[in-house]
C-alpha cells in the first residue's frame, strides 16, 4: 500500500466531515436522478423508487468509496482495536491473567535490558570512544594479565608507536585533603596533562588540565569529580579558585567534571603527575622497574585495533631487546591492546548476559502461557468465529483481528511491565556498580523504551499468531459440528507442545538458579581462615604533614592510639595492619606481587623472581583476628627495630616455596632492598583475605615495628556487639589526633557479607526468574489439563457410567500431566547441559552439570506435573455421569 499522508491526515482529523461529504455527494446524485425521472414524466413516488434502484445499495457503495481511501486501513484498525478492547473487557479473567503474566516477563526484561544497555552497549560518553584503547603489559607464562607501567615504559610506547595518537597515564593514590578545620582522605587520580583531552571530557565548570599544568614547577591544581563536589563540597558553585592543602602544598581547584563514569576508577579528584610526590621523584622516573601506572591511548584516525596491536607488539619486542636485564625471556613479556569499552565492562559481561538470558526465558514462558490461555478462550468462542466466517469475514481479517487483540494484551503487559521495571532498577544499579563504573549510566531511556515496545509487540505476535491461524483453519468445520466443546486434534498437539516447551525452558532456568544457589551456599560455607565475629575494622589516614619531622613520630602515634583503644571497656584486643582482610579496598586491588629472593637460591639472569604479597602487621594481629599459628611463632613486642628482622609466612607460601621442607630459619630478601635478609620464624594458617572465592595466595607478614611507617587499618575484637564499640573508638582516635581521616568503618561480618554481594544478587535474581517460570509452568500445565478434562467430560462420563473407578480416572489424568512434564524435563536437560557451560565462570566449586542439582530439579518438575494435573483430575472423578452425558 502506498502511504499517502494527506489521506491519512484527512482520515485522522476530518473523518466526520469526509463521511458527511460522501452522504451529501450521493444525495445530490440521487436528487438529480429523481429530477430527471420526473422530467421524463414519472410520478414523484415512482421517480424516487427508480432512482434508488439505479443507485443500488447505498451501504455497499459507501463502503467501496471508503475502501478506495488509504485511511481505510486505519479505520479497520480502529474497528479491530475497538472490538478487541470490548472482547478483553468482557473476558476480565483472561485479560488479567494474560496482562499480569506478560507484565512480569516484560518488566523483568526491560529492567535487565536497561542494565545491559547502560553498562555494556551504550557508546562511551567520551568523544570517539571507539578509538580509545587500554594498554596491558602482560606476562603470559606466569599468568600475570596486568603489569603496571613504569615511566620509562610509557615513554617508549608514546615515542615509538606509529598507531597511537596520544598516550595517557593514570595511577591512583590516597592523599589527605585539608581546609582550615577538617581533613579527609581523598581518592586521587594522578594523570598526565592530556588525560581529559584524550578522553574528550569537557568540564562542568572551570577547566580541565592543559599540558602546562603537567610541567615541572607548575602551580598545583586539582579537578574535582562531580560526585565529590556534590557530596563533600555541597555543590559549592564558587568552588573554582578555592584552595586546599594536600601534601603540604596549596592546591587550587580549577574545574569540576560532569557526572560521567570515570575510568579506570572512580576518584574524588584529579591531579597532574608532577604533583604526586612518588611519581615526580627523579629516582622513580629513572627506574624502568618502578611500575605503578595504567596506560591508555587514543588510536590515530582509521587505525584498527589489530593494526595497533601489531605495531605495539613490535615496540614491545624492541624494548625487550634493548633492556634484557629488565624483561624476562621472550614469551614472558607481551603487550596487549583492548578497546576501552570492553575493558570497562568485561567483568560484568557474563553475569549480565546470563541475567538477560534468564529474563528472556521468563518472557518466553509467559508467551507460551498466554498462548495457551488464548487457545483455551478460542475453543470456547469457536462457534462465534465460525459464525463470523460464515457471514463472510475473510480469513485474513479474522487473523488480523485476533492479532490486534493479542498485541493489545501484550502492549498492556508492556505498559504494566514498564511500571514495574523502575522498582527493580534501583536495586540493579547498585548491584551493577560492583562490576563497572558505567552503572551510573543506567537509565530507562529511549533505547530501553524502544526495546520494551519491540518485545511487547513481538510477544503479542508470537503468542497470537499460532492460535489465530489454527483457529481459522477449520472454522467452517467447527460450525458444521455445532462448534464449541471439542478441540480439534491439531489444537491439542500445539497446546501440549507449548506446555512441554514451557516446562523445558523453566527447567533450564531452574537449573541455572539451582547451580548458582549451590555455588553460593558453598561460598558462604568457606572458612575465611579467621574468626569474623566480634571484629570491627576502621581505616585511618593521618595528615602526613603533622608527622614528617621524624619516623619516630608515627610509631609514637601508633603506640598512643593502641594505648587509648585498648583501654576502652569491651575491647578484647586491637591490632593495626596494612590491609584489612575482606575489606572492599583489598578485594578491589587484590594481592600485590613483590619480587624476593631466597637465601642460597639466586635467581638467574632473565628468570622470573618469586613473588609474594606483603602484609605489615603488629604483634597483636594474628591473635585479634584469630588466625591460627601452624608452627614456629608469631611476632612479639621484642621484634622491634633493634632486633633481627623476622617474618611470618602463610601455609600456601610454605608449601609453594619449600615443598616438603621446613621454612623456619630460612632467610629471604626483597628485590627493593636485596641486602636486608629477613628470617622466617613462623607459619600461620591460610586466610582468604582477598575474597572468599579466591584460595589463599602466597603471603608474607612483616612486623610494623621493624618496617616503620603507619599501618592504616585498625582491627578491634570486642566482647559485645562490635558496632556498639564504634563511637567509643572514634572518640578515642579523635582525642589522639582530630585530623586523622576515618573511613571504611565496618564490622568484619559486614565486609564478609558485602564481599559476597555479586554472587548473592545474581543468585537471587535468577532465583526470582526461576520461581516465576515455575509458577507459570504450573499454571500452564494446570490450565492445559483442566481444559483437556473439560473436553473429555463426556468420554469420562461414559467411562464412569460403565463402572470405571474414579480413582482410575484421576490417575489416568495425572499420568497425562506427568508425561507432559517428563517430556519437558527431557528437553530441559538437553538444553541445560548445553547452556549451563556459560555459567561456569560464575560458579564456585560447582560443576555446571552438577548431578545433585539436575536430579533435584527433575524431581521438582515431576512433582509439579503431577500436582498441577491432580486438581482438575479430582474434579472429574466427582462428575455425575448422567449430567456429564447431558452436557453435550
Amino acid at each position, binding site marked *: 500500500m502506498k502511504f499517502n499522508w494527506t489521506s491519512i491526515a484527512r482520515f485522522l482529523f476530518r473523518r466526520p466531515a469526509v463521511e458527511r461529504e460522501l452522504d451529501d455527494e450521493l444525495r*445530490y446524485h440521487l436528487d*438529480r436522478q429523481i429530477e430527471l425521472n420526473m422530467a421524463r414524466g414519472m410520478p414523484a413516488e415512482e421517480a424516487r423508487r427508480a432512482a434508488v434502484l439505479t443507485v443500488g445499495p447505498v451501504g455497499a*457503495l459507501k463502503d467501496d468509496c471508503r475502501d478506495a481511501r488509504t485511511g481505510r486501513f486505519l479505520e479497520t484498525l480502529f474497528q479491530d482495536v475497538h472490538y478487541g478492547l470490548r472482547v478483553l473487557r468482557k473476558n476480565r479473567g483472561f485479560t488479567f491473567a494474560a496482562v499480569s503474566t506478560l507484565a512480569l516477563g516484560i518488566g523483568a526484561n526491560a529492567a535487565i535490558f536497561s542494565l545491559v544497555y547502560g553498562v555494556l552497549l551504550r557508546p562511551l560518553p567520551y568523544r570517539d570512544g571507539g578509538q580509545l584503547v587500554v594498554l596491558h603489559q602482560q606476562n603470559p607464562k606466569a599468568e600475570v594479565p596486568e603489569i603496571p607501567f613504569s615511566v620509562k615504559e610509557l615513554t617508549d610506547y608514546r615515542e615509538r608507536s606509529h598507531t597511537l595518537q596520544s598516550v595517557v597515564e593514570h595511577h591512583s593514590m590516597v592523599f589527605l585533603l585539608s581546609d582550615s578545620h577538617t581533613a579527609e582522605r581523598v581518592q586521587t587520580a594522578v594523570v598526565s596533562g592530556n588525560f581529559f583531552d584524550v578522553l574528550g571530557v569537557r568540564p562542568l565548570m572551570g577547566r580541565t588540565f592543559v599540558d602546562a599544568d603537567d610541567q615541572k614547577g607548575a602551580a598545583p591544581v586539582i579537578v574535582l569529580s562531580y560526585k565529590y563536589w556534590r557530596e563533600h563540597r555541597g555543590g559549592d558553585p564558587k568552588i573554582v579558585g578555592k584552595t586546599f592543602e594536600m601534601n603540604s602544598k596549596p592546591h587550587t581547584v580549577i574545574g569540576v567534571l560532569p557526572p560521567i563514569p570515570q575510568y579506570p576508577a572512580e576518584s574524588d579528584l584529579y591531579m597532574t603527575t608532577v604533583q604526586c610526590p612518588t611519581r615526580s621523584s627523579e629516582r622513580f622516573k629513572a627506574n624502568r622497574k618502578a611500575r605503578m601506572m595504567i596506560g591508555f591511548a587514543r588510536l590515530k584516525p582509521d587505525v584498527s585495533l589489530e593494526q595497533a596491536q601489531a605495531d605495539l607488539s613490535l615496540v614491545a619486542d624492541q624494548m625487550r631487546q634493548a633492556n634484557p636485564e629488565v624483561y624476562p625471556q621472550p614469551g614472558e613479556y607481551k603487550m596487549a591492546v583492548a578497546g576501552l569499552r570492553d575493558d570497562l565492562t568485561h567483568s560484568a559481561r557474563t553475569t549480565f548476559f546470563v541475567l538477560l538470558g534468564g529474563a528472556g526465558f521468563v518472557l518466553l514462558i509467559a508467551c507460551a502461557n498466554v498462548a495457551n490461555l488464548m487457545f483455551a478462550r478460542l475453543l470456547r468462542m469457536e462457534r462465534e468465529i465460525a459464525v463470523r466466517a460464515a457471514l463472510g469475514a475473510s480469513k485474513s481479517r479474522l487473523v488480523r483481528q485476533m492479532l490486534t487483540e493479542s498485541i493489545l494484551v501484550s502492549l498492556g503487559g508492556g505498559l504494566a511491565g514498564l511500571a514495574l521495571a523502575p522498582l527493580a532498577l534501583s536495586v540493579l544499579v547498585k548491584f551493577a556498580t560492583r562490576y563497572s563504573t558505567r552503572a551510573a549510566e543506567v537509565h530507562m531511556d529511549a533505547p530501553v523504551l524502544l526495546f520494551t515496545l519491540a518485545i511487547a509487540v513481538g510477544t503479542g505476535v508470537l503468542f497470537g499468531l499460532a492460535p489465530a491461524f489454527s483457529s481459522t483453519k477449520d472454522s467452517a468445520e467447527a460450525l458444521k459440528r455445532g462448534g464449541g466443546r471439542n478441540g480439534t486434534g491439531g489444537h491439542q498437539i500445539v497446546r501440549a507442545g507449548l506446555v512441554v516447551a514451557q516446562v523445558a525452558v523453566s527447567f533450564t532456568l531452574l537449573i541455572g538458579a539451582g547451580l548458582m544457589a549451590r555455588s553460593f551456599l558453598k561460598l558462604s560455607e568457606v572458612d575465611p581462615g579467621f574468626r569474623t565475629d566480634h571484629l570491627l575494622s576502621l581505616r585511618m589516614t593521618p595528615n602526613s604533614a603533622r608527622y614528617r619531622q621524624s619516623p619516630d613520630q608515627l610509631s609514637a602515634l601508633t603506640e598512643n592510639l593502641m594505648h587509648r583503644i585498648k583501654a576502652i571497656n569491651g575491647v578484647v584486643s586491637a591490632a593495626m595492619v596494612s590491609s584489612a582482610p575482606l575489606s572492599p579496598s583489598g578485594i578491589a586491588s587484590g594481592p600485590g606481587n613483590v619480587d624476593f629472593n631466597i637465601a642460597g637460591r639466586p635467581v638467574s639472569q632473565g628468570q622470573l623472581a618469586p613473588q609474594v604479597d606483603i602484609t605489615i602487621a603488629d604483634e597483636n594481629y594474628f591473635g585479634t583476628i584469630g588466625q591460627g599459628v601452624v608452627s614456629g611463632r608469631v611476632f612479639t613486642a621484642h621484634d622491634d627495630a633493634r632486633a633481627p628482622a623476622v617474618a611470618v609466612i602463610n601455609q600456601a607460601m610454605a608449601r609453594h616455596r619449600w615443598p616438603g621442607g621446613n621454612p623456619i630459619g630460612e632467610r629471604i630478601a626483597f628485590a627493593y632492598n636485596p641486602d636486608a635478609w629477613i628470617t622466617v620464624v613462623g607459619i600461620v594458617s591460610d586466610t582468604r583475605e582477598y575474597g572468599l572465592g579466591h584460595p589463599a595466595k602466597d603471603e608474607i607478614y612483616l612486623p610494623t615495628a621493624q618496617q616503620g611507617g603507619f599501618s592504616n587499618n585498625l582491627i578491634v575484637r570486642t566482647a559485645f556487639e562490635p558496632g556498639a564499640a564504634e563511637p567509643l573508638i572514634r572518640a578515642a582516635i579523635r582525642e589522639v589526633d582530630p585530623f586523622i581521616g576515618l573511613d571504611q568503618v565496618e564490622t568484619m561480618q559486614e565486609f564478609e557479607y558485602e564481599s559476597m554481594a555479586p554472587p548473592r544478587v545474581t543468585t537471587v535474581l535468577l532465583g526470582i526468574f526461576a520461581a516465576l517460570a515455575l509458577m507459570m509452568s504450573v499454571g500452564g500445565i494446570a490450565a492445559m489439563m483442566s481444559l483437556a478434562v473439560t473436553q473429555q467430560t463426556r468420554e469420562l462420563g461414559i467411562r464412569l457410567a460403565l463402572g470405571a473407578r474414579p480413582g482410575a480416572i484421576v490417575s489416568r489424568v495425572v499420568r497425562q500431566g506427568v508425561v507432559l512434564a517428563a517430556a519437558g524435563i527431557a528437553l530441559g536437560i538437553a538444553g541445560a547441559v548445553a547452556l549451563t557451560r556459560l555459567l561456569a565462570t560464575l560458579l564456585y566449586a560447582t560443576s555446571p552439570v552438577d548431578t545433585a542439582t539436575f536430579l533435584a530439579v527433575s524431581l521438582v518438575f515431576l512433582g509439579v506435573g503431577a500436582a498441577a494435573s491432580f486438581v482438575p483430575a479430582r474434579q472429574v472423578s466427582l462428575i455425575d455421569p448422567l449430567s456429564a452425558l447431558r452436557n453435550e
Partner: protein
Amino acid sequence: MSKAKSDLLQGTLDLLILKILDLEPMHGWGISQRILQMSESVLQVNQGSLYPALHRLEEQNWITSEWKTSENNRQAKYYELTKRGRGQLATERENWLRLSVAVGRIVGTA
C-alpha cells in the same frame, strides 16, 4: 467482489472520467450524464463503480474536489483534473488507442 472482471472496466472508467474532467470541472452526476450523452447512450456507468473510482482517483492526486454551486443552484462536489491527472490522461489515452487498434486488428474491423 470479483476483481478480475472489474479491472478492465475500472481502467477504462478511469480514462473516461479523466477525459471528461479535462473538458471542465464536473460533479459525479454530471460525469455520469456526460458519459451517457457522449457515448450516445451506449455506456451507462453504474454509480456503484463511479463514486469509488472518483475517490480512488482523488486518492492518487489525479483529481481534486471542491464544493461549488451547481447549475440548479445547489451545493455539489465538483471534481477537477490536476496537473498530474493531465499527465495520467495522456498516458492512459495512448495506452487505450494502442490497445483498441491492436484489438481491432485481431477481431478484424476496418
